């Protein structure tokens, strides 16, 4: 009585029945798998181009800062990484909300695919923050509001990943992580606010990595290009990871030699 799960698409896959919304058909894991495969290389290419442009602007075009010298250039990595870490968490939470409300498996898999990349960007933000702090303030770590918030965000990401790997049953793991991500999202503004409040209360707010030099236009362009590069990279990596997850859970409609299409 057991039919291979892969043969039962979660959604009706014929585009015609969805009227104007052809895209809804791609909510089917079976259809999304090849689409993701085709899209990923383009995003990688876009990421590479934007990164080259951004780094060139950041390291060669933008002027040297009067106060901080060349060291400030790490802002072109630190700030985009920090922005992306927050943005990815919000996108993750959006997918989790979709997964809970619409009960679609692909949404939760997108969230799971994004989590490690989000954690990576958070780590990059923290490390680049440390690299900035050492020559500037003489210490490797500074309890700056932004860095502290990034640290807590890293814990939220790691918690999400830990919960997912601890629960064996994939569907329960997806839904549990979805609830966790949503609770984290509601909590995130509270965390940011409290850390900001804590920071201003305890020190003179002079120690701040966000006290960026007044932005020359080229600096802003460089940061935006790097942010774009990070964004394209995040999408590309998420697409690749989602394909892996689809295969792992036997939803890709691809018969793997080892699993014989029976799924996890």
């Amino acid at each position: 009585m057991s039919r291979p799960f892969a043969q039962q698409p979660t959604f009706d896959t014929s585009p015609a029945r969805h009227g104007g919304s052809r895209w809804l058909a791609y909510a089917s894991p079976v259809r999304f798998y090849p689409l993701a495969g085709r899209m990923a290389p383009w995003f990688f290419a876009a990421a590479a181009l934007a990164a080259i442009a951004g780094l060139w602007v950041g390291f060669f075009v933008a002027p040297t800062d009067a106060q901080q010298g060349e060291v400030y250039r790490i802002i072109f990595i630190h700030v985009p990484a920090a922005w992306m870490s927050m943005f990815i968490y919000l996108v993750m939470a959006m997918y989790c909300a979709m997964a809970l409300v619409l009960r679609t498996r692909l949404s939760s898999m997108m969230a799971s695919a994004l989590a490690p990349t989000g954690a990576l960007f958070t780590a990059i933000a923290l490390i680049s923050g440390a690299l900035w702090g050492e020559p500037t303030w003489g210490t490797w770590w500074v309890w700056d509001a932004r860095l502290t918030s990034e640290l807590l965000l890293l814990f939220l990401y790691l918690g999400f990943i830990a919960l997912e790997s601890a629960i064996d049953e994939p569907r329960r793991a997806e839904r549990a992580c979805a609830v966790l991500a949503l609770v984290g999202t509601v909590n995130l503004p509270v965390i940011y606010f409290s850390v900001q409040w804590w920071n201003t209360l305890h020190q003179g707010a002079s120690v701040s990595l966000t006290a960026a030099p007044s932005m020359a236009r080229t600096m802003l362009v460089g940061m935006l290009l790097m942010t774009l590069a990070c964004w394209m990279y995040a999408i590309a990596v998420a697409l690749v990871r989602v394909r892996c997850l689809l295969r792992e859970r036997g939803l890709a409609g691809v018969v793997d030699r080892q699993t014989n299409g029976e799924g996890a």
Partner: protein
Amino acid sequence: MAQAFLAIVRHDLALAWRRRGSVLSSLLFFIIACSLFPLALGPEPQQLRALAPGILWVAALLASMLSLSRLFVQEHADGSLEQLLLSPHPLAVIALAKTCAHWLTSGLPLLLLTPLLAQQYSLPAGPALLLSLSLLIGTPVLSLIGAVGAALTLGVRGGAVLLCILVLPLCTPVLIFGAGAAAAADAGMSVLPQLSLLGACLALALFLCPLATAASLRIAME
């Protein structure tokens, strides 16, 4: 619905009394943890007094995490949780009742002990009482957030540590405001801002956490 709420609280309190060993052991952990810091930091009264609010708050936070790991576990194992999910009462109300009972057996004893432990830190009576007040508002929030974590990690391997990993970052605002209130009290400043922020956290948690706990319980039982 109110009858069911009270029935659950009474029932859980009766159970906690029967299992008072585990209730007392998390309390004992709190006491021991508070005694460790002077041993580690040195007995100088001025330094201890300055650090007291933070240390006591962190110890309370960790003790709460320990006691939260036993929330729902026994009920899950013997099938009573299943029966609660089959009750026609809203699961969020049931979750809130269980969280309330849990706080009465873990958070409340903690804050009653705090003025005594504050003596170890040479914290004067006024700030010590304000510290207890901050715990009074803050520990229910810890229980509420922790209940969500407990429901998510129900029956999962490595449950207790995983619970801590998930819940501690979410509790940092409470820690900041709570310890901040006590520190402000000791410095002679107004505690009203911190306490009102704590109160706001409590209000938000009272509204959202039971819903999240209910959703997590259903997910755990599927």
